[in-house]
């Protein structure tokens, strides 16, 4: 069962659950646009947002400044723009290793140091980017406003951090401090002035020199640290409270969201310039994944799982649904053909002015010497030599989407076939809930530690590549049977699908995963290290993407899949599918496929 609102836990409120797919999609659109801006403005093609965190070449970027994490629910688009511009400038103008090596020890110190460095680079935006300047200012002011209005400035430390942020910002950008809090921070400024003045005075002058600037920043932080200790001392009778305050404060800055330990992180999906060592590292990680027992696993054809009567019945449902769709299949087929085709030698063009001499026309040359169209030339026609495999997550939560997904897949298969590609529809689930026989075996053998995957897999073939969609109609309908849906182990399913694809002769192979959640299997999850299945999926997807012989795409329903897959699309499936949904899928394939070839 997939946890659909994993990423949405911050929203908390019930009614927003219904909006989950919409918000995911929105988030993705915003991230796509902002990611592209960062890549362009920073000249860093390896940058991307993965699971909402900024990453470079699969590794966390190390950028954690609090105001660079806008939230869809409370912030406007310009805030996202400002955050993206901030990230771009930081990547371009700041040495992250130097920054990290100078990072102070205390929580508040780290927060301030990060903020100060970010404000430094933001102040360096060139004059020819007035829009960027405006975005940055807008974002910082929004953040300050939210910080203030959420009551954080009511605590001593919160006010201190806020005041220093305002002072730095004002000094670096020559903007006036925010009017609404001007009076609030004035006493703090007066109090700080004698201690921090000597550092503050140089801040703007040194803003082009990261190291020299850091000396000033750290000077101020040491003053702040003393003050924080003093506040703690004042409240020593209530020590717990102040610690709690501190934690809450740091939390509210979003620092906890981006644990710096991420430096090591899981090896993720790298760009095309991945090195051989990266690949070896991935393979090594993949080897760590173990399977307790695979004797109960099976690969089964859908026709063996669902009786003919039932398939017939589901078929009628599906037919009814497909009839009601507003999709132009021939057009879709044409678009697909354009994306998937590559020129192939296909016969000759005759009557050319040059090329190979065409013996049949030689007589014409004698009879009319001026006639020169006696040549023939090879003709290249676009042909698609391509296999598209759909791999469907058959976990319980997918039940709600299945009718739409089945319709989507069937229409795609028909269009793909018309475009000359082969298609395959696969599904993955488990044979029983909570581990089934394998889990019981493990229990009987005394529960050895770290057992690895602890369930029996069920891999279902709905349609194989050699069966035309028309003949597979009944088997495709089988996926509507609710009892097929149990739990899901994505990583192994991906390997299975990839292996099937590699055995085929098609030149181009495209694997599209349809899922609404992260891997989830109760027995395995409870008896293995945390994130065991998650990591495996990330590694498998990373490995396939790095290897590059299969193009891997993911369609997510209500969950951001960017944590796992490099090329993913959040989809909202309306009751009645429109051309727009397909257009989005096509665009994704067109955009990324073009370059990977």
């Amino acid at each position, binding site marked *: 069962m997939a946890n659909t609102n994993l990423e949405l836990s911050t929203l908390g409120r019930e009614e927003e659950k219904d909006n989950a797919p919409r918000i995911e999609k929105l988030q993705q659109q915003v991230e796509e646009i902002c990611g592209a801006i960062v890549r362009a403005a920073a000249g860093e093609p390896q940058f991307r947002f993965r699971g909402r965190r900024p990453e470079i070449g699969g590794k966390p970027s190390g950028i954690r400044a609090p105001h660079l994490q806008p939230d869809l629910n409370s912030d406007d688009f*310009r805030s996202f723009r400002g955050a993206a511009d901030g990230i771009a400038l930081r990547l371009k103008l700041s040495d992250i290793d130097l920054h990290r090596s100078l990072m102070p020890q205390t929580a508040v110190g780290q927060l301030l140091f990060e903020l100060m460095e970010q404000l430094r680079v933001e102040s360096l935006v060139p004059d*020819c980017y007035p829009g960027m300047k405006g975005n940055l200012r807008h974002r910082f002011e929004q953040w300050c406003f939210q910080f203030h209005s959420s009551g954080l400035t009511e605590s001593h430390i919160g006010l201190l951090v806020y005041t220093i942020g305002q002072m730095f910002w004002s000094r670096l950008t020559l903007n006036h401090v925010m009017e609404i809090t001007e009076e609030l921070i004035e006493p703090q400024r007066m109090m700080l002035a004698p201690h921090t003045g000597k550092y503050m005075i140089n801040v703007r002058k040194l803003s082009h020199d990261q190291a020299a600037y850091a000396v000033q920043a750290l000077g101020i932080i040491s003053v702040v640290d003393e003050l924080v200790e003093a506040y703690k001392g004042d409240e020593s009778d209530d020590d717990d409270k102040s610690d709690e305050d501190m934690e809450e404060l740091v939390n509210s800055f979003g620092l906890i969201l981006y644990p710096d330990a991420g430096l090591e992180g899981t090896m993720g999906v790298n760009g095309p310039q991945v090195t051989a060592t990266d690949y070896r590292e991935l393979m090594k990680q993949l080897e760590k994944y173990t399977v307790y027992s695979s004797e109960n696993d099976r690969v089964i054809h859908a026709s063996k799982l669902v009786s003919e009567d039932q398939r017939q019945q589901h078929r009628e449902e599906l037919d009814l649904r497909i009839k009601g769709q507003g999709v132009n299949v021939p057009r879709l087929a044409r678009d697909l053909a354009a994306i998937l085709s590559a020129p192939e030698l296909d016969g000759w063009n005759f009557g050319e002015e*040059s090329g190979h001499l065409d013996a049949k026309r030689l007589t014409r040359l004698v009879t009319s010497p001026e006639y020169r169209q006696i040549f023939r030339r090879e003709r290249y026609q676009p042909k698609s030599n391509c296999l598209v495999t759909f791999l469907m997550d058959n976990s319980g939560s997918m039940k709600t989407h299945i009718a739409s997904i089945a319709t989507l897949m069937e229409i795609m298969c028909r269009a793909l076939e018309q475009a000359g590609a082969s298609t395959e529809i696969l599904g993955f689930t488990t044979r029983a809930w909570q581990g089934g026989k394998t889990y019981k075996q493990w229990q009987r053998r005394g529960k050895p530690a770290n057992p690895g995957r602890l369930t029996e897999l069920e891999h279902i073939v709905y349609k194989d590549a050699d069966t035309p969609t028309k003949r597979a109609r009944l088997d495709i309908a089988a996926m509507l049977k609710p009892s097929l849906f149990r739990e899901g182990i994505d990583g192994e399913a991906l390997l299975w699908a990839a292996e099937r694809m590699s055995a085929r002769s098609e030149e181009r192979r495209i694997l599209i995963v349809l899922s609404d959640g992260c891997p989830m299997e109760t027995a395995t999850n409870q008896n293995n290290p945390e994130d065991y299945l998650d990591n495996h999926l990330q590694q498998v997807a990373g490995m396939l993407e790095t290897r590059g012989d299969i193009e891997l795409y993911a369609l997510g329903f209500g969950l951001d899949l960017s944590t796992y897959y490099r090329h993913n699309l959040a989809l909202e499936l309306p009751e009645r599918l429109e051309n727009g949904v397909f257009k989005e899928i096509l665009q994704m394939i067109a955009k990324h496929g073009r370059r990977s070839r």
Partner: protein
Amino acid sequence: MSDIKVQQPDIMISVRDVFGIDTNLKVPAFSERDDHVPEIDTAYQFNPEVTLAILAGFSRDRRVMVQGLHGTGKSTHIEQVAARLNWPCVRINLDGHISRLDLVGKDTIVLRDGKQITEFQEGIVPWALRRPTALIFDEFDAGRPDVMFVIQRILERDGKFTLLDQNEVIHPHSHFRLFATANTVGLGNSTGLYHGTQMINQAQMDRWNIVTTLNYLPTEDEVKIIQARLPSFNDEKGKQLVQSMIAVADLTRQSFAAGDISTLMSPRTVISWAENIEIFSNPAIAFRLSFLNKCDEAEKPMIAEFFQRCFDQELSESWAHQAAEVMADGQH
């Protein structure tokens, strides 16, 4: 085609004086301008490295290929060097329709004294070979393979050229020079940007003695070019505007390199944008007419973002309009 009067370069000119490059090099040049010598564009900014490569081509008879993205002014660069040397110059665009016969020559029927007779009409290659001309093959990588093999012989320095139909061997003139420009380095259409380019036979690539790359100019130089071309941008306000325009162009180039968009703004586009601003006196409208309308529908919102960064102005293609309906923007 009229003939060239002066047959030999008769003066030496100083590279430092004419091209502003810090070197004591002197190169041979013609004292008289011929019809075939290109016009001098005084606003042209020479790239020192490429200029030296081209000059080596002229003075030492090297075969020089200039490679680079479109709109960087590759052909113009060679022409402008030739213009300053008064060296006659002929450009041929090797598009897919140039055939062997066009280059070499073919029999044609002409009327003479009221009678039809067949006569061999020389193609451009034999014509140029006999004269002190610089022959420039534009879009060298778009040439068809059969055409390329015609060129292969003359690529060699003392390569004699045989006209099979005429039983004639042509010895190239001692001041015949050969140049080419290409978008790719003979590797074909690997980015998807240059459809119609071909892989160049390695034996052909080998015969180019110098391959130089002309990339986009540094921002200051690009600003100077535009200001030189369009004097109305020659004040402080104009300079600021041009800098922002080049910033947009730069973002599209970086974004193209990252694979996010499939069209980029070449210096040529920036210049036509600037010219269109003079006509419409509105940077946004001129931007749409000179670049945005050439872009893929799906990429327009991205490009609108670049524009917003550099002009602080929202285009109607911008995603921000959509955002106002669906995001927190609308709630305020």
